[in-house]
């Protein structure tokens, strides 16, 4: 499948006389194949928006290579911009124009037929409110307008930064359906979001970024499988047998975490070995359930951003590829 978006070794450094140097992007790589819905994930300040802005020519990179629809950018951006629809960060529009005026002006600037304006207004559910000024819109309505502006060109590649931000539950579901419909029609969608449940539901593949570097990528199933810990939950007929079972399993090299009424096992390749081992010790299992890993836990593990009781994690405190993996251990903020 051809790549519609390729990034190799992208670097962006911000230098401040007062605060020193910060590597917003530190050799970042990314690839999105045609026709996919691709999730682009990362904690706050990890470089997601910087990547998208750089890709779209708003920020000048300090190194690396980028290509959109097979053309190197930013050099070829003027020729491919008509095929790339994007919203970057929060939706921003001139507040005194109506949604219809806003889209009409964008359509005029991009030489898009005026009829397309009504089509996208219908698509995002703003048809009946299109004549009202944008300043009267809620965040969710502005978000819909932003998506409409990105869809106006009928692009081959749609880049949406936090499109579900501010949407009501119905709106989130509509957005999910829209993304799938667009992908089925052949459009490639890159979706940056912190609603990981949504990403897991609608994305074919993901890239996870932390501190300006890619920490995971590939089809969602593969990423989940790669980071599955082989966790298994075990309950026994008698709760009093749990300590004996813990001993037996630990001796067999399985990592065991005890709980009042069950055990959590880690590093189990085949759950059948657990039943056999326990049966050999006359311990009988009442429940043996592999614990499925979800994208959120993989994300928190990879970016080392899981909340720790009693600690207040700061922005930029997350995992560095090849580093210690401890929150705060690598800094990464100004002056890092």
């Amino acid at each position: 499948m051809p790549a519609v978006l390729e990034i190799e070794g992208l670097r962006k450094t911000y230098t401040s006389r007062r605060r020193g140097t910060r590597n917003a992007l530190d050799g970042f790589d990314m690839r999105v194949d045609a026709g996919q819905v691709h999730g682009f994930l990362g904690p706050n300040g990890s470089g997601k928006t910087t990547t998208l802005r750089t890709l779209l020519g708003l920020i000048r990179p300090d190194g690396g290579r980028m290509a959109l629809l097979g053309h190197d950018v930013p050099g070829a951006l003027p020729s491919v911009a008509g095929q790339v629809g994007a919203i970057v960060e929060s939706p921003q529009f001139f507040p005194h124009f109506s949604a219809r005026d806003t889209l009409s002006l964008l359509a005029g600037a991009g030489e898009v037929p005026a009829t397309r304006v009504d089509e996208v207004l219908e698509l995002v559910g703003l048809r009946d409110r299109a004549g009202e000024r944008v300043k009267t819109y809620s965040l969710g309505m502005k978000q819909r307008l932003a998506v409409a502006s990105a869809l106006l060109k009928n692009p081959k590649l749609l880049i949406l930064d936090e499109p579900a931000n501010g949407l009501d539950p119905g709106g989130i579901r509509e957005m999910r359906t829209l993304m799938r419909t667009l992908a089925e029609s052949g459009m490639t969608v890159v979706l940056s979001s912190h609603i990981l449940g949504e990403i897991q539901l609608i994305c074919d593949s993901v890239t996870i970024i932390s501190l300006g570097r890619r920490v995971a990528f590939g089809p969602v199933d593969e990423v989940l499988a790669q980071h599955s810990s082989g966790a298994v939950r075990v309950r026994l007929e008698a709760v009093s047998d749990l300590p004996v079972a813990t001993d037996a399993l630990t001796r067999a090299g399985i990592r065991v975490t005890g709980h009042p009424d069950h055990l959590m096992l880690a590093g189990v390749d085949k759950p059948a070995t657990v039943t056999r081992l326990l049966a050999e010790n006359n311990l009988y299992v009442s429940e043996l359930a592999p614990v499925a890993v979800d994208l959120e836990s993989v994300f928190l593990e990879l970016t080392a951003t899981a909340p720790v009781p009693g600690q207040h994690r700061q922005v930029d405190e997350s995992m560095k590829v090849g580093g210690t993996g401890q929150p705060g251990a690598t800094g990464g903020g100004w002056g890092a």
Partner: protein
Amino acid sequence: MSLYRTELRRLAKRRFTRYMSLLGLLVLAAVVVGVFFTNQKIDAGQLARAERQADQQYQEQVRWSEQERAACEQAKAAGTSSDGRYPDDCSLITAPARDQIQAEWFLPSTFNFRQTFDETLIPFAAILALVGFVVGASFIGAEWSTGGMMNLLLWRPKRLTVLLTKLAALLTGILAVTLPAAVLWFAGFWAVAAFRGSTEKMTSGAWQSFALTGLRGVVLVLVVTTIGFALASLGRHTAMALGGVVALMVVGQFGLGILLSMASARFTEAWLLPTYVAAWMQKKITLQDWNSCNATYYGECKPDTLDITWQQSSVLLSVGLVVILGAALWAMRRRDIS
């Protein structure tokens, strides 16, 4: 071309553009109406009455000087003339010549097109330049501060093309207001002169001179509009342009003027921008240094003078325009957009 047309549409759709243009035109209309009602057409009866009043004034002056001369001689005879009230030679107290008291002084104000229209082009250009400045600054400043510019650049990633197209649309819009306004200004004052003054002695040379002054006024409006646009683009906010101008006028002009006066510098007005704007419109301004004295054959004391010409002003305006617009273009090309 589509971008240019779109930007023209955007400019026309903005309420600020509409309101400011309307306000500027209303002020111009108020000036014309004000001049109309404060002037009168002079007829022969009024002229004769003014002549009589001038005669009357002359007679009063003659009577008063004779009384004063008599009082002077009396004081001299009484030996009380040393208090400085009267000159040593009482014959020096004389009435002014008749022709020094002009009948015009006793006429109501009248609008002479040939003599006065030139002066009206200065407020015309100043008001429209002010409108152009704030509309230009707001046109680009609001785009930057509301994120509209970023949206546009996602559609048209050629930054300089976008900025220059916006500027072209802005100048077209300002010109579309200025040129008809100029025609109406000429027509309005012609009507004022016709009904409340005089349109006599209008030669082709006089028309040509007015047309050239009007042209310089239009150029001034366009230059000031461009500077407002460029300053707001440089600071990415309308307030940058407005704040910059306030800072320039308060610190750079009033402050500099006070400092130069305290230092007793010569021709302090030569350091002030309004002097060059006035010179641009009037073709030449002659500054005088009243601290100097050049004696003439007749014993008069003439001050030193310094001429500021419209050519010198054009150099200053051009350099200012190139530097500020150049900086805005450079910043547009080089700076990250976030």
